[in-house]
């Protein structure tokens, strides 16, 4: 091989083919997908919470893509039906994830609707799930001598809070919980049209 132009051109053609297959065609195929009727855009609190989810890297341990019942027992675990492209119309960026060090979260708002549970679990996961290896997020909270009016105080199981103090959620924690509660793709979707 003596020709550098052929080399560069060939390299660009192979990359172009790959880009066409993996980027352009999916873009064309999926960009016009409509949001299913049951899916509402995220509230602004949920969007702020989504930013907290991204900033702290929750995606590295939690997927948001329950799989088909024929493939894996995701439904049996209560993670919801297999997701479809329409479920992600409002997701910028996507948070499909690639690890299940923890469970799938696409329907965590259905499975665990309680705000108190989420706040306490973020403060100390092992107070609610023995054996959990999820990090604790004390920096999303504040320990105070007494709660002030308007504070969201945690109701922790005995022995998990700082003695003699109350733990109060910071706005980031409240936003994050709003996002987790909004994770709900339990509305029905039509199966894809047969081809």
């Amino acid at each position: 091989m003596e020709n550098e132009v052929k080399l560069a051109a060939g390299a660009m053609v192979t990359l172009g083919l790959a880009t066409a297959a993996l980027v352009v065609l999916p873009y064309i195929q999926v960009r016009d997908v409509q949001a299913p009727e049951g899916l509402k855009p995220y509230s602004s609190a949920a969007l702020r919470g989504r930013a907290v989810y991204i900033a702290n890297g929750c995606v590295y341990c939690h997927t948001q893509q329950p799989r088909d019942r024929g493939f894996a027992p995701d439904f049996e675990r209560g993670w919801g039906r297999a997701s479809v492209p329409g479920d992600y119309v409002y997701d910028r960026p996507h948070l499909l994830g690639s690890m299940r060090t923890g469970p799938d979260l696409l329907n965590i708002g259905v499975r665990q609707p309680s705000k108190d549970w989420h706040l306490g679990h973020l403060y100390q996961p092992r107070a609610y799930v023995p054996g959990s290896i999820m990090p604790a997020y004390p920096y999303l909270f504040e320990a105070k001598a007494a709660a002030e009016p308007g504070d969201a105080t945690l109701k922790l199981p005995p022995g998990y809070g700082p003695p003699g103090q109350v733990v109060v959620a910071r706005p980031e924690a409240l936003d994050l919980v709003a996002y987790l509660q909004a994770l709900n793709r339990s509305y029905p979707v039509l199966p894809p049209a047969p081809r």
Partner: protein
Amino acid sequence: MDSAILSLLGAFLLSIMGLFVFIWSMRKGLLVENPQAASVIFAPGEIGRVDDPALQAPAQAGLQAAAAEPGDAAHAPHPQALAQRIAADRSSAFPVFMFIAFACLWLLLGSVAGLTASLKLHMPDWLTGEAWQTFGRVRTVHLTAVLYGWITNAALGVIVWLLPRLLRTPLAGAMWVMLGGALLNIGIASAIGAIGAGWNDGMEYLEMPWQIGLFVVAGMVCIVGPALYTLARRQVESLYVSVWYHVAALLWITLLFLVAKLPGVHFGVQQATMNWWYGHNVLGLWFTPVSVGAIYYFLPKVIGRPVRSYNLSILGFWTLAFFYGQVGGHHLVGGPVPGWLVTLSIVQSMMMIIPVAAFSINMAGTLRGRMHLARQSPTLRFMMFGGLMYMLSSLQGSFEALRAVNQVTHFTHFTVAHAHLGAYGFVTMVLFGAIYFMLPRVLGWEWPYPRLIALQFWLAATGIGIYFTGLTIGGWLQGTYMLDATRPFMDSVAVTLPWLQWRSAGGALMLASHLVFVGHVLAMALRFGPQRTGAALFSQPAVEFAHGK
């Protein structure tokens, strides 16, 4: 149309095309061996001469004696060709040293962050007080520091050093290359700071905010320009296979990064396919071709014999270029993406066996009867280890893409183990070997403590061995437990714990090896140890002759 007819038609067209390619390759004489093209890395008369600058003179002589084969010519290498090589080395010394110095810095930071993240997975209440210490951020700092900081800097060092050598011309625009290196590393440092502070774009491998990515793109453009200009000014007729891999890789990564970082184009599911198109191509079209290209140069150069089959290396290059770009969809097996895309990626993942086989057969043929030289040559040891791990990790990756295997391994630590086998066992080990070869020529100084090279090799090899074995077993168990609906999810967490601890043990050995490595580089740069080749920084006389004797 009926799918059976469609696949029959596809098979027919494919066979016809294959036939035409075969006829074309016969006409071009591609099936006839081409030893001349494989020998362009040697000066006339140099074949049969070993070359490992990581060795001191007596050890080099021992290696030469061990490598002697009947039929070796006795005459000396062509002095003019050697002078050309020395001029090429000198032109690139400053930028190469800059890339290696940055690479060492990020290697240390990245491995400390990696070990911290690993420990956090089995000590979840350790270091939780500050936001920047949380697992999700430390892990991402690790990834950014080792992938963009260590591997990319070291890879650029290898490319910038090899291109002038292989093209027999001084590096054009060294100042531009250094400007590019500065911009790139400003980008990396800012990205690590941003991720620690919680500012990231939220996609794996693409966490760096796109605003910071502009620095990386500008830096890459400043480096690609001089590389292409050097290519245009070459003084050699035939382009050696490493040049192909390296030039193509430079173009690929620049475009990949640019396209992937365009803000505001993608969302939802199609963004996920773009994400994994990039995510796998950064490995397949950047780390892999750089490292394979490095092996194609350093391995034959050390043993003083051209690669067994030059045409096999061409086959390997074009099949890698074609198949590797399309494998990214296998990261979304079972996900909410179009089925054809996943199937395409699985097929191309299996096709990756072809370039890997071409590479492995070629290297095995080149090394046949000469593997014992690895006992004496540190560079060869790293290259052989890296090449073997390339074969293993790529074959593993092909089979991991199959739906039946992926069902178990997807979303588990098994994938993490596989990623480290590729990025560490293969790429990082090759880069270590390349740096051991290059740095004495760059600095005009020998490695001060040769035993540290052996120590570093064994620490790194043992470390990745423990890491990979532990995490592979743990990940597989995790996957089978997750698929078993009768087991609670928490079982799949509990079963991984001992293996996560093994991973930390392996990671600690790897960090120790990096401390040895960086310490050794530092000692060399600061002129520790007995002086041997007697040269001042960046203005050395003909070191090549000293080794060539």
